[in-house]
């Protein structure tokens, strides 16, 4: 993706966020009997965000030769992010040890293409290590 598109889309996303902030902030008191209300500060940074994101969108459209954003490897980052999200669900359903071991196995086996016995050993070793270090030695609760 060219930087023009990247800036355009990030600018539009920020403009949308700014619009949401302004709409929300306008529902709260701008000023009360004791001074500025809950909506005062958010309204002004929302307006600033809207103006600046509009400038970003406009400048991305006007730029002659945008630099390319290197998206190689973004697929790997997306896969790991998705695995993290699944791991959070697993923490709730099966506990930290199983969720974390599954995540570690996925990273070693699928992301780093290491043999499955090594992946399993790393996963079990890390999950066990965390259990020994945090709840047993440091008294810190795991999810």
């Amino acid at each position, binding site marked *: 993706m060219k930087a023009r598109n*990247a*800036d355009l889309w*990030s600018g539009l996303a*920020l403009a949308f*966020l*700014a619009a949401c*902030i302004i709409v*929300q902030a306008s529902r*709260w*008191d701008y*000023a009360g009997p004791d*001074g*500025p*209300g*809950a909506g*005062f*500060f*958010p309204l002004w*940074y929302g307006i*600033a*965000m809207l103006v*600046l*994101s509009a*400038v*970003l969108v406009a*400048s991305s459209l006007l730029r002659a030769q945008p630099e390319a*954003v*290197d*998206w*190689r*490897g*973004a697929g*790997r*980052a997306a896969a*790991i*992010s998705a695995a*993290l*999200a699944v791991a*959070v669900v697993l*923490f*709730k359903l099966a506990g*930290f040890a199983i969720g*974390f071991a599954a*995540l*570690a196995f996925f*990273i*070693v086996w699928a*992301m*780093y293409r*290491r043999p499955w016995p090594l992946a399993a050993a*790393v996963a079990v070793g*890390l999950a066990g290590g*965390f259990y020994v270090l*945090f709840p047993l030695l*440091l*008294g*810190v*609760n*795991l*999810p």
Partner: protein
Amino acid sequence: MDVLSGLMHGFAVALQPANLLWCFVGVVLGTVVGVMPGLGPPATIAMLLPLTFLMNPAGAMIMLAGIYYGAKYGGSTTSILLNVPGESASVVTCLDGYAMARKGRAGAALGIAAIASFVAGTVGVVGLMLVAPPLAKVALAFSAPEYFSLMALGLAMVVLLAGRSMLKALLAMLVGLWIAGIGTDPFSTTSRFTFGRLELLSGIDFVVVAIGVFALGEVLACMESRAEGHALPVPKGLRNLLPTLQDLKDCRFAFVQGSVLGFLIGVLPGAGSTIASFISYGVEKAASRRPEEFGKGAVEGVAAPEGANNSETGGALVPLLTLGIPGSGTTAVLLAALVLWGFKPGPLFISENPNLFWGLVASMYIGNVMLLVLNLPLVPLFAQVLRTPGYVLYPVIIGISIVGVYSVSGSLFDVSLVVAFGVLGYLMRKLDYPAAPLILGLVLGGGMERALRQSLMMSQGDLAILATRPISAAMLGLAALILLVPLFNKLNAWRLQALE
């Protein structure tokens, strides 16, 4: 308490066995973190912050500060051996450090880096000790309008120097302000931006955002590729790590200017150690009798930036501890740590917490000695850290991040938020949005809103109060000038040059 008695008191605190141990743990961890490309001090401090809640605050602060300045020592190792900076402040060390290593002088480069770091680190602590108490006395005269303007100035400085695009830095800062505003309004108890979620009523914990954006964001960026670097061999034996007398003689000016410049740049919010190291390198090259050797293995090209980035640490702690204004991502995390432990960094911090302030100062002297003693003989050991495979290292960082967040709140909702902020941090890197303004906006957002609203209460709603009080007007004027820099081609070119 005068400086000398304060320092004596500080040594009594820092030399307690437990605090000595935490100092040692901090500097070793910092060195390891500095050695590892990708994992920086803000991420490490953010990850370990929740685990420090069980510790004595003085010991915890000593350890976290040890990570901060220890990382500066470690950062040079990968720059010299691998041509990959362990952290951004060590980028410039690659130029001459790696060139020296390729000529078979890796030992001398590592030795000079350690000595420069020691000299400058000590100068930085002396500066902190001498400058912080008088500055705190001046800041006692500040009221809400001055605080608002000071925070605005701090944010403007960070925006100026955080990245190539000031527009993106400003937008990142505004997103930080928005995240800071999530939760219950402290003045009216109105719930803001909570989307009907009870978990958001008390706001989003700083630790969640910092760990997500810094630690998970960095891990996702590092895991984009399976490739791992190959380090040049480290010379064995202490004798091979010691620079020659001629090296030391060549570096004498670099030691001094790196230390002084690094400290002065550190005091300015936003400038940071990366800028300090680049400016110091530029000054050294400009003043050198043989500038043509820079980039080809000049020993001063290692000493000056390494000195500057260590001395900057002492400087950066000055506005943090005396004004409560952090100047970088790392000091923002340290500020959050102090607040979480129940302290209020600001003009009264030193007088109300002499144990913590002077204990920290004294521990930094001790920590710098520990680092010098550790770094020279143990460089080969630290270099082994580079051999840790990514498929082991990154799951460990992810695990510590998750446990750290969960230990603060005991909430899986916060764990899912940290994943979301990790993705945000990754996207910010890809799209060239700097993370530091977001974190500073988040840290300063609450205080900034409070100071602005208090100012307007004082003036019955008249914004002119910010412009009619001289100190406030001067700081706001300076902030406005800073934000206008892109309109002046020459100044903007200088800014971009400093950043690149």
